[in-house]
């Protein structure tokens, strides 16, 4: 399994995403923001950070990066794509996923261990989880409040496209406690919390996040 991990200037969690891929016995392939090809990878992770500083709107510039044009094209053909935190923001800006991420409702950056419920276990990234399993992974973001119009929310809810939902106190004011969503096809997933920081209980709160990368392994092997 070869998984591309994109680095934009200002990307921070690329090393973590690469490590998570290795933990799932995959090969992590670094992709640079200016690349015009995806180097034949089986899937792509858009990791967390502050792409280009995110001084405008999070992800607003990154979506125009050359490598993102390749990602959009591949995603539309069914390649598994995962956006974590800033990656989720970028996928939303690129219209691979609906909605937008806004400033946390309490206005502070929040870094905490967060319980999530896994509600959709049929995406490319979540097959290893039991439906409605609760997992504990870090959440760390200042602009993680998920917003979408009523029609979009209804569409997401009715079609089981909410993949992860916050359990307990809503950390950032996300509509419907939404932590992560998928596209209609189930190959593109975006979430604000960080499964790549929860692959080993030594350095994370748990290893609950590893399931996402192992799920991808299953998806790629089956394909």
């Amino acid at each position: 399994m070869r998984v591309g991990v994109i680095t934009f200037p200002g990307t921070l969690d690329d090393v973590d995403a690469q490590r998570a891929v290795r933990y799932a016995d995959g090969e992590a392939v670094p992709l640079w923001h200016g690349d015009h090809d995806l180097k034949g990878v089986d899937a792509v992770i858009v990791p967390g950070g502050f792409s280009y500083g995110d001084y405008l709107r999070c992800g607003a510039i990154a979506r125009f990066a050359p490598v993102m044009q390749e990602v959009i094209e591949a995603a539309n053909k069914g390649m598994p794509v995962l956006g974590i935190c800033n990656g989720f923001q970028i996928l939303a800006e690129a219209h691979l996923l609906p909605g937008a991420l806004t400033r946390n409702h309490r206005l502070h950056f929040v870094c905490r261990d967060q319980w999530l419920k896994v509600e959709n276990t049929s995406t490319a990234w979540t097959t290893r989880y039991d439906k409605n399993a609760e997992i504990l992974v870090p959440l760390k973001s200042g602009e993680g409040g998920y917003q979408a119009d009523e029609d979009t929310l209804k569409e997401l809810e009715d079609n089981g496209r909410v993949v992860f939902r916050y359990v307990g106190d809503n950390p950032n004011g996300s509509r419907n406690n939404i932590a992560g969503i998928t596209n209609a096809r189930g190959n593109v997933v975006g979430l604000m919390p960080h499964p790549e920081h929860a692959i080993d209980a030594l350095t994370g709160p748990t290893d609950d996040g590893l399931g996402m990368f192992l799920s991808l392994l299953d998806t790629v092997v089956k394909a």
Partner: protein
Amino acid sequence: MIDTVKNAEATPDQEQPYQELGLKDDEYARIKEILKRRPTDAELAMYSVMWSEHCSYKSSKVHLKYFGDTTTDEMRSKMLAGIGENAGVVDVGDGWAVTFKVESHNHPSYVEPYQGAATGVGGIVRDILAMGARPLAVMDPLRFGRPDAEDTKRVLPGIVAGVGGYGNCLGLPNIGGEVVFDESYQGNPLVNALCVGAMRVEDLHLAHASGTGNKVILYGARTGLDGIGGVSVLASETFDDTAGKRKKLPSVQVGDPFTEKVLIECSLELFEKGIVAGIQDLGGAGLSCATSELASAGDGGMHVWLDRVPLRAKNMTPAEILSSESQERMCAVVEPANVAAFMEVCAKWDVIATEIGEVTEGDRLVITYHDEVVVDVPPRTVAHEGPVYHRPIQRPADQDELQANTPDSLPRPENLLELIKIMAASPNLASRKWVTQQYDRYVRGGTVLAQPSDSGMIRIDEETGRGVALSTDCNGRYTKLDPYEGAKLALAEAYRNVAATGATPVAVTNCLNFGSPEDPAVMWQFEQAVKGLADGCAELGIPVTGGNVSFYNQTGSTAILPTPVVGVLGVIDDVRRRIPTGIGAEAGETLLLLGETHDEFGGSEWAHHVHGHLGGLPPKADLKREKLLGEILVAGSRDGMVSAAHDLSEGGLAQALVETCLIGEVGARVFLEGDLFTALFSESAGRVLVAVPRTEEQRFVDMCTARRLPWRKVGVVDPESNALEVQGLGELPLDELREAWEGTLPALFD
């Protein structure tokens, strides 16, 4: 008109604003003596910033020498770089070198809390980068005035957001620090920032410009009008709005963490390719500092073409370009053959890089601006041969009175159970979650321990699991009561915190925050604290590898509590054997108290919080005991005999119990002997609460007994109870304790 050397020679009597730039009469006279003429505007700007207290250490130098005098060759054996370099470097084994340093950014953070704190983080990170290391983590020891004061509500949220805003965007985990409240910091909060980095031993880079013909390349952000005169104006004088002087404009720099992140990755790629001969960060004093220090440490001179510096403001004068403190800039010395490769790497990262100078023969630093010479100086006189002062020293007249005012007569409460809760909720002991939750502690995936653990711990080698632990500590009340003993206590606590995680302490850094050096009483505190810290290090056998002095921390004539923040670095060969702070990791644990408890309440949190009292003597520091305690903890970790450990400091055993239960999310039953108030709240040093699995208990206490470390069984972990029970007093439900401990800061600052 630009003031050139030629012009300066022609107009020897022209008046210059040296006083406004912070230079004294005799200092100005000495510059004229060195140059055999009056300085140009640009030279004056350079000397004034480089001879400021902040850059030149002119009041502290004679005392800091004592650190070197007391460091033995054995202590020095693991040190690869020490005091005088950008940061100290220690060999930590497996071919790894670790560099760490803490610096102050106090005054800018008072003027502009967010940017002051943010650029404090940025500056220390570049110091670590300039050693050739990848920065790995940051910590921030912070001190504020009264928690309920109006100004604290302005300063604290801004500083916390600034530390987080910069560090989070830079992608460095924040693994610990301190938040302390005391009235003395009311008009002068302390923002200290620590960074730790690692590199392979052979990759160590030192700042010097050698080799005639080598190019000097400035890379990173453009140079602007921000932070001009920051070090001389802000850091080296007291805030004093009563003196009727011309009000100075704030000169705080503005940080751009994204640019710094790119600068880090770009620099690391340059180091990896081996195309950097010398490197220096630009921080306080900007280009003045970088060019003079590089030239001074090299074996030749330097020529700089100042008009080549990329600017972000129009019509900047040479003096302004030289003293700008614009952030996110580095200066490299590169062999001519490597310049093209250097530029290529910078282009990949979209980093602006400009050849601004060249290493020359001779021993002058010559700076030209559009072909006219504006600076022509011997660089050592700017960078390393600044003024040195032997400031008057006088033990304060009221020191005896202060020490005689012991806490012995303070009424001690009847309801000790209630007091446990009151203390847990006190601003200095309450949970720091409100602060630390704003900091990313996970990025890069190497964080093994972070707040609220006793130390932060970072894995540096994923193959072997080798890592380092770090803690910073200082109790300014102890130092006020006895600066010598107080500094030793700060060292003892940081050392103990590191050992409590299973790491072996190996090196020390410091950030010495004091009042005005022109006050003999402050200089006495400073001298005593330096002695105490140095003597303590000698007793422990670990060297001071670097540090920072911040003077003029006072409001009006009132100095802050003397605050020598001490950082201790420890090494652990395998982070998997780290000792956590919370109990409950193993089924069936016994609680043991290591060390001895005496009736010691001078400077204690109880006297401060309940009685607003400060007097008497601080607890006694016993560094031989600390060393033994450290060895026992490391041995316990190595042999899997200790499942949790938490050091006892402010708030005593009661606070340690509350924290270990709440962090571990399990209850405990505790049985104590003798006077329960003393047992619970005394702040005697040299104590650690440990949890040992029942199966290891005998082996562990046998080891303590054999090595003559006093120990006492004080309780058992009770996963069923969900309460902290103190026999003879009753029990406190953990929910209630958590509400008390975690409720305080949100109530104050949300």
